[in-house]
């Protein structure tokens, strides 16, 4: 796949933003609120936060919103009229400043949402999103993208990947998809031919901490291991890790009625909650927190690779950052690699 590489001057980034804005595109970019950086609809280039390692939440919210209407119904005298979501209403969105680990997460989501049955709502949202990725020049002890098959400069999932050449240098723009070239066409003046540029030297240093194939093999016969109990003693069973994760796609379907009409809504859910698998009879196949923590790891590092040939983890480390009790997934994966034989 030959990626055409362009050079974008440092100060023409703002011009690119304005051109996109003029073309009435909705732009979501990282902005700070309550001391946390999240993707917020932004109108001005100056509103974008730049010195951060990672947003608190992944960009999953844009293609798989936390709450999403899937149908409307109205009861009338002679029956019921039910209307599905009008896929054309889904807005065009530019996702500005997506880290490679988020962009890579989209592959995990797409694998689930297109396993046999095609989820048109998700596919339509994704088709209307243009992902402008920004490589990482900094990382911290939570990041392990290189162990999860990605990297600070990985271009999977991005339509254009910008890599800043040096602290305030110009940007190397790798255009990867038609959506990417559409943006280049829109602002062709800003994209200059780029010579041979070695971007690796400007990327963050992320050491490889484990081998995911090895972990996958070890997980196959570790279902009864004591490790799950030991690791999950301090887990409190909240949903923070699942909701900040770029590849967690589990959802719940709820109905909301207001008088004669109402909606059916799809909203995020987490395997960390005991309600997730509770039967009406009271029986719960996953009663203990250790069983639920095991499900989280097994799904991402064993079931998804087996069934969908894609790992359910991009190594962003968000779940460890967001966890109230410091359940560090990297630490647990390393101990699985060392302890389970």
């Amino acid at each position, binding site marked *: 796949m030959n990626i055409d590489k362009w050079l974008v001057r440092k100060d023409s980034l703002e011009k690119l933003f304005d051109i996109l804005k003029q073309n009435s595109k909705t732009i979501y970019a990282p902005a700070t609120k309550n001391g946390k950086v999240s993707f917020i609809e932004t109108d001005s280039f100056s509103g974008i936060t730049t010195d951060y390692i990672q947003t608190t939440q992944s960009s999953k919210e844009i293609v798989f919103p936390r709450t999403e209407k899937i149908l409307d119904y109205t009861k009338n005298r002679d029956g019921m009229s039910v209307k599905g979501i009008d896929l054309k209403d889904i807005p065009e969105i530019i996702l500005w400043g997506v880290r490679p680990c988020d962009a890579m997460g989209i592959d995990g989501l797409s694998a689930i949402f297109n396993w046999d049955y095609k989820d048109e709502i998700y596919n339509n949202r994704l088709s209307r999103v243009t992902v402008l990725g920004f490589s990482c020049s900094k990382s911290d002890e939570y990041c392990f993208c290189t162990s999860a098959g990605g990297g600070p400069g990985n271009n999977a999932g991005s339509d254009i990947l910008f890599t800043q050449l040096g602290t305030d240098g110009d940007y190397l723009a790798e255009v990867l998809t038609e959506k990417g070239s559409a943006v280049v066409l829109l602002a062709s003046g800003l994209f200059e031919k780029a010579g041979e540029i070695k971007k690796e030297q400007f990327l963050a240093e992320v050491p490889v901490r484990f081998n995911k194939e090895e972990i996958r093999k070890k997980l196959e016969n570790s279902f009864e291991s004591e490790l799950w109990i030991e690791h999950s003693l301090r887990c409190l069973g909240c949903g923070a890790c699942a909701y900040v994760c770029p590849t967690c796609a589990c959802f719940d379907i709820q109905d909301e009625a207001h008088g004669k009409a109402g909606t059916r809504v799809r909203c995020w859910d987490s395997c960390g909650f005991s309600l997730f*698998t509770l039967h009406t009879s009271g029986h719960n196949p996953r009663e203990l927190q250790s069983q639920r923590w095991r499900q989280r790891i097994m799904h991402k590092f064993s079931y998804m690779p087996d069934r969908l040939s894609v790992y359910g983890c991009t190594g962003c480390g968000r779940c460890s950052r967001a966890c109230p009790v410091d359940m560090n997934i990297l630490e647990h994966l390393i101990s699985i690699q060392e302890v389970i034989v």
Partner: protein
Amino acid sequence: MTDNLYMPYLMKIEKVTYEAPGVKTFMLKFINEEDQNRFTFKAGQFGEYSVYGVGESTFCIASSPTRKGYIECTFRQTGKVTNALSGCEEGSIIGFRGPYGNTFPIDEWKGKNLLFIAGGIALPPMRCVIWNALDQRDNFKEITIIYGARTVNDLVYKHELLDWERRKDIKLVTTVDPGGESPDWKGEIGFVPTIVEKIAPSSKNSIAIVCGPPVMIKYTFPVLTKLGFQDENIYTTLENRMKCGFGKCGRCNVGKYYVCKDGPVFTLSQLKELPDEY
């Protein structure tokens, strides 16, 4: 099926039959004619039945695929949706999404004896297979049905049990748990596993299909193995909490198998491979 996976068919409730305390059977017809003609399913598949404004609930399609023009479902009133469902009368509109899941491999059973073992409210998934087999009766040799419930009143499809009893080409054994019998009860008395042991159907060239509460299944499998049934000839269905029904919402998995996609029908040999998580 429109491109929106989550959009149910609109179904009208044609007939409501009261089966047992808290258990009802709905006969459902598609409101939209083409959906009716285009709709096909196989024995063992399930669907999501929705009451708008309340939610969706998962149970099998209880009518046989050989009977066209309608589908039936039987449910017990336990949760939020089933309570709302049992409040619906004939003529009201509900939603149905499906068919989902895999099927009983009836075609492979041609020329074999069939042993159906059901407990309590688990007769519906079996009834679908039984009628499917009975509608092609000569494909199969001996058909034995062992069906038990807690009390006489809890037996579902009472009228059909009578039909099956009168038929000469089926052996029907109904039982009730000890203490559940009524004075004029002529059937067996005892738990289903003990009755299976007593009847001791031969395992030569035969398939066993077992559905029922987990405790009944747990005690019936060893009996069948003792009678010589091979693990791959014993079929059962698994029940897990479900929301989507097509492998997306991520909650019905047992190990790496999804009950909504790889099930609900499993053989005992498959069950033995599954981790203890159901």
